[in-house]
C-alpha cells in the first residue's frame, strides 16, 4: 500500500518537474521543439506492466491536471489524449513479462500517438494552422527521441517497482 502511494507521489512530482526543472535543461536551440510529457511515459509503463484500467484513470487525472494548470485555450485535450492512448496501448500490449524492446516500442508508438491526438484535436478546434509535415519534423520527432531516452533511463527501476506492486495485488486477490 505504501509503495503505491509513493509511486503515485512520484508521478505527481514528475508532473511538477516537467513544468519547472525540465524547461531549464532543454538547450536553447531546441526550445519549442522538445515538449516533454514525462508523466505520460511513466503512465505507459503502468499500462504495460500493471493494468490498463489504472493507466486510463491515471492518464485522465494527470491529463486533466495539465489542462487545468496550464489553462490557455481549453480543458480536456490532454486528459482525452493521455487517457485514450494509455488505455489503447495497454489493451494491445499489456503483459507483465513484456521484454524491454517491446516496452521501448510502446514508448515510441505512444509518444507519436499522443502528439498526433493533440495535433488532431487542435486542428479540429482551429487552434493550429501548421501543416502536418511541419509539425511532424518540428516537434513530434524530437519529442520521440526525448521520450525514448527518458524511457531508457527509467525502464529498469520503474519496471521492478511496478512488478512488486502487481505481485502484492495478486497476493491480496488470492487471500480473498
Amino acid at each position, binding site marked *: 500500500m505504501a509503495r503505491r502511494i509513493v509511486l503515485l507521489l512520484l508521478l505527481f512530482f514528475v508532473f*511538477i*518537474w516537467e*513544468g*519547472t*526543472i525540465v*524547461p*531549464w535543461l*532543454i538547450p*536553447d536551440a531546441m*526550445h*519549442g521543439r*522538445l*515538449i*516533454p510529457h514525462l508523466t505520460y511515459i511513466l503512465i505507459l509503463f503502468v499500462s504495460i506492466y500493471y493494468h490498463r484500467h489504472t493507466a486510463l484513470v491515471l492518464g485522465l487525472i494527470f491529463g486533466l*491536471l*495539465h489542462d*487545468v*494548470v*496550464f*489553462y*490557455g*485555450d*481549453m*480543458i*480536456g*485535450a490532454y*486528459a*482525452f489524449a493521455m487517457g*485514450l492512448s494509455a488505455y489503447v496501448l495497454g489493451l494491445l500490449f499489456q503483459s507483465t513479462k513484456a521484454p524491454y524492446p517491446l516496452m521501448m516500442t510502446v514508448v515510441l508508438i505512444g509518444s507519436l500517438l499522443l502528439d498526433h491526438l*493533440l*495535433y488532431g*484535436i*487542435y486542428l479540429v*478546434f*482551429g*487552434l*493550429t*494552422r*501548421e501543416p502536418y509535415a*511541419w*509539425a511532424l519534423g*518540428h*516537434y513530434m520527432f524530437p519529442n520521440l527521441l526525448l521520450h525514448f531516452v527518458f524511457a531508457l533511463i527509467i525502464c529498469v527501476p520503474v519496471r521492478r517497482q511496478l512488478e512488486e506492486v502487481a505481485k502484492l495485488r495478486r497476493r491480496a486477490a488470492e487471500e480473498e
Partner: protein
Amino acid sequence: MLKLFKLLGNKKLFILLVGLILFIALMGYTLTNRGSISWPEKFTRDTVGFVQGVFYKPASYIAGFFEDISDLNGVYEENQQLKLTAAQYMMQQANYNRLVKDNERYKEQLKFTQNQLAQNKFDLHIANVTSVDNDEDTGTIVIDLGSKDGVRKDMPVISLQGMVGIVSQTSNYHATVKLLTTLDPLDPNSKAIAATAVGKENESFGMVESYDKATGMLTMTQIKENDPLAVGDTIVSSGSGGLFPRGMIIGKVVSRQVGDFGLTNTATIDPSADFKDWKEVFVVYTKEAQE
C-alpha cells in the same frame, strides 16, 4: 445495419463513444470565453502552483548561475553600454518630466473626463514564473500573482525585453499567461493588438494578429498603403483598442509587403521577447474596466 448494432453492443466501444462526446463537449465549452473558473479548478491551480513554485525558483537560480559564468566575458562591455544608456536616460528623464507636466496642463485646459485621463495609466507588478508549458499550439506560463493580488483576465504581461502575452485565467494566487506565440486570428480567444511604430504614433497603425511558428515572426496586418512604417521601426501597442495600454514594446519590423487582398500592407515583426528561460515577468495593471 445489424452489424453496426452488434458493434455498438460492445460495451467498451460504447463507453469510448460516450467519452468522446463528453470530451468534445467539455473542450467546446471551455474553449468559449468563460468569465471565471470554478472553485475546484482554482483550488487545483493554487495547490499545484505552490508546489511548482518551490521547484521552479531554485532551478532558475542554478541555471542562471551557469549562464552568468558563461556571460562573464561580456560583462565589461555590457557595463560600458549600460553606463551610456543610463546617462542618456538621465538626460531624457528631465525632458520627459517637463513634457508630462505640460501634457497634464493641456489636458486640464481641454477638460478631459476622468475616464479619458485614466485610460493610459498603468502600473507594473513583478511576478515570478512558477512553471512553463512548452506546448507548440497552446503554450502558457503560470505566474504567482492571482486575483487576490488584483490580476484580472486579459491583462497584458511583459518581460524586460517586451510584451510576452495576455493573462488567460486567474485563480486566487496564480494566473496563467497565454503567450504571444499563440496569437492566431482564427482562434476565438486570441485578441489582436492595435499597434503603431515608435516616432510615428500619429501616422502609423496596424493590427498585430498572428504568429508564425515556422519562422518565429509576428505578422502585423491592415497597414495603409501610405503608412510611413519602414523596416527597422520598433512596434509598440497603440492603446487605441482599449484592451492594451499604450507603449508596450512588441518587436521590430523585418519586412513589409502587400497584404492578401492588395488593398493593405502587412509587416513581418521580429518579437522582442524571446519566450524562453523565464524568470520574472511584469503584469501590467490597467484601469478597472467599466462594468
